Structure formats: C-alpha cells, structure tokens
C-alpha cells in the first residue's frame, strides 16, 4: 500500500476521527450495558436491538439542544474548552501503533508526544471550569489541576522506569522489542525489575485519575459539585466533554497496551496483528468500566494522600531498583 504521503495522512486523520467518534459513542453504550449487568438490570434496551442505537439517539438529542453560554462567562474560553479537550485525544492516537504498519506517524519521540498532548486535556477542563463563572465549576477546575499535578508525577516516574528498559521513545520499536511469547512483554520483564507488575498497576491507577474516572471523578462528583466543570455546558458542548472522557480512556488504554502488554504482538509469538492490539486495549477499557461500578468515590484529600504518600514513593523505589538492576546486568 504505497499512497502518496498527503493522501495517507488525510486518510489517517479521517480514520482517527471516525475511530474516536465510534469508540466514544459505543463505549458509552458498553458502559451503560456493563453497569446494568453489574447491577442486575438490563441497561438500555429500547432503541434498536439491545439498545444499540442508543448512542445515536443520545447524539441527536444533544445536537438538537440549544447551546447556552451563561451571561458573565468568558465567551472565547468557554467555547474553546470542549475543542481543546477533544483534539489532543485524536492527536495522540496518531502516534499509537495499531499494528506494524497501521500507524499515523511513526516518530521517534512518540512517547513524549503522547504526554505533551495528554496534558492539554487538564488545561482544557480547567479553562472550561474557569470560563463558566460558576462556583461549582471553579472548585472543580481547582480540583482537576491539583489532582492531575499529583498523578502526573508517579505516572512519569513509571514511564521513565520503562524508558530505561526499552532505551527508545519510539512506540513502534517498544512494541517490537516485546515480540515473542508473552513473557517478553514489559509487564513480565521481572529480570530488569521484579516490581514490574506493580509499576503497571501504578500506571493504571494514574491513568484512571488522569482521565477523571470513578473512583477518582472528583471533577464531576455530581453529589457535591452538580456536574463540576461541565455544569454550565448545554447540548453538544457537554456532549463533547463526555465523548472526550471516553476518547481519553481509549488513548490511556492504548498506551498501557503498547508500553506494558506488547501492543499488537500475539501472546504466543505467532499471528501478531491489529486484532491483538484491540483485544488487549478493550480488555483494559472493560477493567476501567468495571472499577467504576465496584468502588465508591474517594474523598478529595484521601485521593491526594494516595498519590503523594503511596504512589510516588513506590514509583521512586521501582525507578531506583531498575537503575541498579540494569547497571548490574
């Protein structure tokens, strides 16, 4: 498949957007269906077979709603925030290798690229909260910022640990290093760091916190802050924030798959391909949904305590341990 570069890029861009949109829409369906099963009820059943058209109905409803900009809100920031929260999620997917060839831009600083754009998400939510001129939204914005500062640190420490093992920031190369049977995956590289599974769990927890998912959904804790930073958003403005949450979950789970679970590599050493990538990623997405319906929401201060007092020290330990073991071998 040798297309000229601009056409290939365009095709990828459209593909990415479609992928994100379909995922966002149907992860909502999956979440509602899953939540229903966890709670011994059927979930959506009315629109389409097994409620499969529910996301379409929701989309139509949200689009048909009036977009209300509250008086006193910052008109520019208020409108830009939903776009800024959605765009980075799509951008980061461009460097994620879905298979050996199926990757938007195979760049050498892929990992840095993902984290650089991932951080914009936080800023966008803060902008939305700030621009809404609503006390709930501002409290929520402040929470989002302190939460993400707290969780960015252990996450990056974990990633540095991993970088020392891989020696490259090119995501495709990281996947290729994990070829072969599943014990070659970074998750099971106990020779370089016996704490590798712990490292993965820290990464996963931080990812939950960064995407503002329950039990860390302080930003939109509806029993305290109505809808947090999104309180003043109506119609599709809110819809975009909602979709972005799921888009970010997809990005986070993709990254976890690439870094720890061998990306598109088959666990048996043969038959690698995009199917394995999707399988692993959706298994992680399911875990994210599972966690949400299993744990009650934590309090904000115990959330910060968890990061500063437990996660950061542990990730420091894994970092140092990896240093020592790499030096020894």
């Amino acid at each position, binding site marked *: 498949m040798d297309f000229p570069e601009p056409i290939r890029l365009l095709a990828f861009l459209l593909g990415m957007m479609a992928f994100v949109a379909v995922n966002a829409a149907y992860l909502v369906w999956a979440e509602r269906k899953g*939540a229903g099963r*966890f*709670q*011994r*009820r059927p979930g959506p059943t009315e629109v389409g077979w097994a409620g499969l058209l529910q996301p379409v109905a929701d989309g139509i409803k949200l689009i048909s709603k009036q977009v209300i900009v509250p*008086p006193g809100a910052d008109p520019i920031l208020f409108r830009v925030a939903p776009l800024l929260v959605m765009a980075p999620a799509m951008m980061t997917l461009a460097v994620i290798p879905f298979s050996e060839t199926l990757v938007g831009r195979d760049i050498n600083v892929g990992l840095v690229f993902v984290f650089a754009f991932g951080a914009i998400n936080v800023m966008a939510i803060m902008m939305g909260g700030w621009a809404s001129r609503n*006390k*709930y939204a501002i*409290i929520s914005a402040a929470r989002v910022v302190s939460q993400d500062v707290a969780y960015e640190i252990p996450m990056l420490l974990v990633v540095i640990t991993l970088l020392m093992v891989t020696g490259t920031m090119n995501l495709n190369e990281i996947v290729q290093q994990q070829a072969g049977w599943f014990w070659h995956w970074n998750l099971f590289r106990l020779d370089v760091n016996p704490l590798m599974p712990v490292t993965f769990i820290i990464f996963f927890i931080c990812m939950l916190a960064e995407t503002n998912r*329950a*039990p860390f*959904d302080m930003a939109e*804790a*509806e*029993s*305290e802050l*109505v809808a947090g930073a999104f309180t003043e958003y109506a119609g599709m403005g809110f819809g975009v924030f909602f979709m972005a949450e799921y888009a970010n979950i997809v990005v986070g789970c993709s990254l976890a798959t690439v870094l720890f679970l061998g990306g598109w590599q088959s666990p048996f050493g043969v038959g690698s391909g995009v199917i394995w990538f999707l399988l692993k990623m959706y298994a992680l997405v399911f875990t994210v949904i599972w966690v949400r*319906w*299993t*744990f*009650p*929401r*934590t*309090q*904000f*201060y*115990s959330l910060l305590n968890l990061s500063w007092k437990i996660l950061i020290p542990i990730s420091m330990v894994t970092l140092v341990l990896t240093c020592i073991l790499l030096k020894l071998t």
Partner: protein
Amino acid sequence: MVARDKLNLLKDKFGPAILRADLPADDRLFVYIEPVVVRDVCRYMFGDMDARYIISIGADDRPFSGKFMVAHNFAFDPEKLLVSVLVHVPADNPKLDSISGVVPAANWAEREIRDMVGVEFEGHCYPKRLVLPDGWPDGVHPLRKDFAWNEVPKDFDDEREFKFDEPPAGCTVVPFGPFHPTLDEPAHFRLYVEGEMVRGCEYRGFMVHRGIEKLAESVLTYNDIPMMAERICGICGCVHNVAYAQAVESAAAIKPPPRAEYLRTVMLEIERLHSHLLWVGLACHIVGFDTLFMQSFRIREPIMWIAEKISGNRKTYGLCLIGGVRCDITPEMRTELRAVLDKLEAEWRPVVAAVLKDKNIQKRTRGIGVADKAACKRSGLIGPVARAAGVDIDCRRDHPYAVYDRVRFNVITDDGGDVWSRVVVRAKEVFEAIEIIRQCLDKMEPGPIQLDIKDELPIGRLGLSSVEAPRGESHHFVITGENNRPRRWRVRAPTYQNLQGVPAMIKDQQLADMTISLGSIDPCFSCTDRLETIDLKSGATKVWTQEELLKLVRAKKA
C-alpha cells in the same frame, strides 16, 4: 402515677404559677401555667428533670378564650410520658419570653409561631423569618383565625428580596440548593466556605408549603385530614396518617379495635422497610457508589408491590380513619407478605454483611457529620440520628401505640454518632421491622377493623401522639373543635428537629462531606414544610413570575 409525680414536682417548685392541670391518662400531662414563669418551667423540665424537647405549638385561641395560646411539648422517654406546657398570651399584647436560650432546640418552632400566629418571643437568639415566603408582608399572620385559608395579602411583594446574613470574613458563599442533584426536594443552604472547608451556613427552606394545617382547620373534616396528612410526605406518609388519627383518638378517648391496631403496625413497618432501603440506596448514590444504590432499590421493590396489593397504592396507603383503618389483610395476602419478607431478609442479609465489612464505605463515612449525645439533647435530634449517637430513644417502645406493646423487638443503637453509625443503625433496623411484621401476622385475630362512632367528637380537647417514623419521632398535636374539624392541628415531622442539627454537623468539614452529612439525617423537606403558600423565586433571569404562574394554575382549574 408518673404523670402525677411530675405534676407534683412542678407544683412544689412553682406553686401558684401552675394554674391548672389535666391528666387524661397516665402517659399524658397538660399543664397550664402563668406566662411569666414559662422560661423557668422549661429550664427546670429540660435541665433538672432531663426532659426531651419535642416542639412548640402556637394557636389562635381568641374566638374561644380571647387569647393566643402557646404550648411547649416535652417527653420523658424512660417514664413513657408526654407533657404539654400551655401558656395563654394576651391578645392585645402578644408577647412571651423565649425559651430558645434554655432550650436551643426551640429555635425554629418559636420563629415559626412568630411567622404564623404573630406571637413575639422576647429574648429569642435569632428572630428572623423562617417559614413565610420572601414577599409576604410583615404583620400578616396566616394561621390567625381572622385570616381566610384562600386569601393572598394585598401587599404581597414579588420583588422583595430575602436578606441573608453576611458571611464571616474570609469565607466565600457556595449555594447549595434549592436545586441540586442530591437534593430531592428544594431547600437552600448558603455554605460559608474557606477553601474546601465549610465554616458555617444559613438555611432558607420551607419552599414547598402547602398550607396543610390551615386547610385542616378551615375546610376539611376529621376524616378528610388523614388523607391530607398522608400527603405531607412522599416517603413516610402513613406515619402522619396514623399519628393524626391517634392524636384525635387520644383527645376523644376512642379506642380502635385490636385488628385495626395490628393493621396499623403492619403498614407502619412496611413503610419503615421501604424507607430504610430507599435511604441506604440514596446514601450510596451520594458517596458515588451506584451499584449498591441499584441493589437496594431492587430488593425494595417487592415491598412496594405488596403494599399496593394491600392498600391499592405503592405509597399513600390511605390507611387510617378516626377509630380504625380502611383496608384489611386477607389470608392470601398474609401468605404473600410472609414470602416477600422471607425473600427480603434473605437478600438483605448478605448486603448488610458486605457493607459492614466494606473498608471503602467506612473510610468515607466514619467521623463524618458527627452529632454526639450532647448535640442530640441540644438540638432535639431524634430517630436513627439520635440512636446512632447512643441515645436510646424509640417512640415504639417509649410511647407505645398501636400494638407495639404486644410485640418484641430490639431498639438498635450505635455509639459513633457519625454517618457510618447511622448506616449501621438503619441497616439493622430493617431486620427488626421484618420481625415485628411477622409477629403481627401471627397474633392478628379476626374482627372488625373500624369502630362505629355514633356521637360527635367532644370539643376543645387536647390530643398528643408520637409515632416513630423511619426518620425519627413524628409528633402530632390536636385541639378538637367545632364543625367536625380540629381547631388546631400541628405536625412536627422528624426532619424539623434533625435539620436544626445539620449546621453543627457540617461545621469545619470538607465541602465534599456536606452532602452525605445532610443525607444521613434522611432529610424530608416536604415533611417539614407544611404550612403556607408557595415561594417561587427564579433570581436574575426571571422567566415566570409568581403571579403569572398562579394565573396559569387558576386558568387550568377553570
């Protein structure tokens, strides 16, 4: 002889200031006293005699005695006695010493009397409008007899703003309600917040007054009122229905047939079952744990079906009339009810076991919203809130009504005084309620369910009734009257007292704990708001004015 002992104590202490007393039964005492000693008598009863404050009632007694009347009700729980201290206030100068200084729990009740009847309480600690809507003119008191039930004061001012207090220095005001996802009913808290810490609050509620008490004493008749009383609350309506009927029965010395009393007990406990399950669900929703919310609602559902089968309605059973009940439990229903109870018990047991072991829920609720024994006494807190603080009170045992003196049950207490203890108390009370219903079904004998009352009810008698609602003691006070309707009927829903304990519970806590602290008293604002007209205020971007809305309503009616 308890009532006479207490009366003698008062007589020894205050002598001639005790004008007269009425002891209709050994568990009721009505004492008429001179206005000048009201504060001393209340201090003596609340402090030295360690009575529990229930409520104060104001009534316009001018057509009958030429004076206003104020009653302060107290309970002696261990001695199974309810006491009403009555004072007549001169009509031309309606002023009385406030007891809010010696009985802090009387704060709201006195403000309400000031709003509704127009008796001024001298020395009140916070004499601010409580019940009447913002635009209501000063000096117009809707519960006076010369004020018609359907009257709107001419100078009602839509534009008048309520004056809130200034927040303390360094604090920001965060509004909580009237519309908030975790408030099922409207109430407005102005939280004074410093960072994420709550430093204080001001409460402005009573937004859904429906003029129920005024209607009762001017339009309805004795047997209409139970249906109206039931609509005071959407969750514990049957409680008000029974409490009202019992208050009238106690005033008129009517004893309903035994089977009716068993049926009342069964329905009250069915209501407790569904209410506690509902509360556990809502509390879980508030702390962000929707899975248990769904579970408890699923477990609760069969109770609603069986209630519908017995009474015709999932809620609002329309159970009581004066002297009996309206619906019976057939043998088929009895079998079915037993099956429902067995299923419910089997399903609820593992849930309770799981919740009591769950570290996450404990972490989230321990040490939150604390109200200790002293706070319960001070604010008059009752029901599961008091029992969670180790205050061993339960009207079913302390002031037995219906057949609670003929069944065995335990009063569940805990000693934490926090939200977690309230969860524990309510979760365990479910099993007691199941046991009570089973015993009633065993002991119920066939017989009439309604007394044949041939005479008119006597006039000017006083009746008290305390019923243990799922949320605490629901207290009704009735003065019987002419035209087949009571002269005055006062309802004190449990939330009325429990809500007054909330400011102390949430002070110096995280904002995030506000909702569960409030939720833990199982607030029922509609219960609390019974009295007068609707307050509609939509703030800066006003779409509908009150006048337009009223016009709309009236046009639809016509």
